[in-house]
């Protein structure tokens, strides 16, 4: 850097001015992100605690003492809604467990053992990203029907697990590669079997990757609409997303304020996960898994 050159920030500003402009832009961006990011959640929350007659045809911004109510949450006691939410929770847990177990084992095998066609297997895995729920779901409808999995939660769990495989297996594979093999060798020297080494040395160190994979599976299962819509056709056994949409299209008593109340409850688990698990999530994603 020559000393004769004029000290130059962006657009010929001095470094101090550049920093000031940068700080201002950062503040403005933060404000925009807060407003745009929080607004829909706030709006949902404020509609959820406003009397449903008011919500139907007027714009409210903050709930006033006259219109404030918690009655909307009575919709949670509605047996139908309760079933939908229960099914969603079961499917989410099932998917998380399946995905974590299967991808941990496969990731370990890919990272530590050598077997023929390993690289090709990994490449084929990536094709999994091309499978859209609709392309798979339409044929799967008939296949599940003929083997009796149509309308069962297990059928949905299998479908959702397979859909998250390309991502989570790749993630585990790359993550386990970052763990030094020497740790395991030390265990083997002490007489541990490969399985013991995997269970007691590798798995505990994989915590960030396990949490990242679990969150990914959770997001997929909690979000899923297309598979559930196709594979759980009967109203009694379906999950939240298709269930609530069907309840809306049937002409029954379901005011918007009640919908917002139940939506708020469904939003809470993701919000808590996002707050408490974000460092694991970011650490898991750092391995450039794909």
């Amino acid at each position, binding site marked *: 850097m020559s000393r004769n050159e004029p000290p130059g920030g962006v657009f010929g500003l001095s470094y101090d001015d550049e920093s000031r402009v940068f700080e201002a832009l950062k503040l403005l*961006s933060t404000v925009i992100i807060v407003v745009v990011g929080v607004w829909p959640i706030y709006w949902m929350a404020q509609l959820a605690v406003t009397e449903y007659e008011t919500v139907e045809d007027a714009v409210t*911004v903050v709930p006033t003492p006259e219109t404030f109510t918690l009655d909307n949450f009575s919709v949670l006691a509605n047996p139908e809604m309760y079933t939908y939410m229960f099914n969603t929770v079961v499917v989410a847990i099932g998917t998380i467990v399946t995905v974590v177990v299967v991808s941990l084992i496969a990731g370990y095998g*890919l990272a530590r053992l*050598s077997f023929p066609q390993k690289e090709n297997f990994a490449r084929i895995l990536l094709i999994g990203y091309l*499978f859209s729920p609709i*392309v798979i779901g339409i044929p799967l409808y008939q296949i599940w029907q003929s083997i009796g999995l149509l309308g069962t939660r297990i059928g949905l769990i299998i479908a959702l697990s397979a859909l998250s495989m390309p991502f989570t297996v790749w993630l585990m594979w790359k993550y386990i590669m970052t763990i030094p093999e020497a740790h395991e060798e030390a265990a083997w020297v002490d007489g541990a079997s490969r399985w013991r080494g995997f269970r007691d040395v590798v798995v505990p160190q994989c915590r960030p990757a396990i949490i990242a994979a679990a969150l990914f599976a959770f997001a997929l299962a909690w979000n899923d609409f297309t598979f559930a819509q196709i594979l759980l056709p009967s109203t009694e056994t379906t999950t939240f997303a298709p269930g609530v*949409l069907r309840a809306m299209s049937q002409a029954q008593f379901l005011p918007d304020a009640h919908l917002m109340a139940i939506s708020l409850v469904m*939003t809470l688990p993701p919000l808590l996960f*996002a707050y408490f698990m974000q460092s694991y999530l970011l650490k898991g994603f750092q391995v450039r898994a794909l």
Partner: protein
Amino acid sequence: MAGKTGESTRARKTYVPWESLPASRETIVGIGTVLPVVALYVLIAVVPIAFAFWASLHDIHTLNPEWEWVGLENYSEVMEIATFWGSLWRGVVYMVGSTLIQLAVGLWMAIVLNRITRGQKLLTAVVFTAYLIPTIIVSLVALRVFDPAGGVFQALGAEQFGLWGATEAPLGSREWAMPLLILIGSWKFSVFITIFTLAQLRAIPDRFYEAAKVCGANRWQMFRDITLPRLTGIILVVVLLRSIFMFNKFDIIWQLTQGGPGDATTTLPVLAYKTVYTDQAYGFANAIAVVMFLFLLVAAIAYFTLFNPSEEVETTT
């Protein structure tokens, strides 16, 4: 009782004649570890695609499955009908529009989130929540705020900006349905790009920036020479993924507009779904699904040969 050496512990287990097997023990165990994944793949991917192809050669009524062999007739019909090409075009518009907006917004959010000092954790949590919130809830809120009866955005747009009539539903208008779908989807899915790029940004050591600062680099130069090269690989990957996901997107479109008004937001997945349940033509829908899959396959192969994002990623790990 377990002995003191490793050998005697192993002897307790069921006897496997590893030595006399044709492959080595490591190969067998290795293949065993990936077998569950292969099984899931075969069940959820290979079998359905093969089944879809077989079904697409037949004329099948959805509720009355009597398979009638028609050969390639379904495919020639798919290529002929105007709704197919229209849906393909709308799907491409939706995909390109969504991906571009999401890339811009997602990158910008990641850079801001990486740089702010106070409230970083809370703000990151809020942003991540947008991605984790179920799509149906995003749709429910969107339907609420764009409802002519008491929807705040509908009222704002009609009264302040005159974008649509006072009693008109924007999601039901030919002019606004598609742009709104792209914007509503982007609120949620931009965060996908933010998560991936933010993880990369966090991995860049601070000393790089300090060194650049000492050398007198300005912020733009630092961004261009330190940040951007680190992000290119992951950007290529997320652009590919987002394009595929948006092309395949069914849920948010179906929830918000059900492909309407008319055909204004009918993309290929919506068309396939409608064909199964509205037209009851199961074989024909499978033909659409197979064609969709082939389109994506060709596009992905082209993308991989042009940019090779996986190589980019593999070399850096």
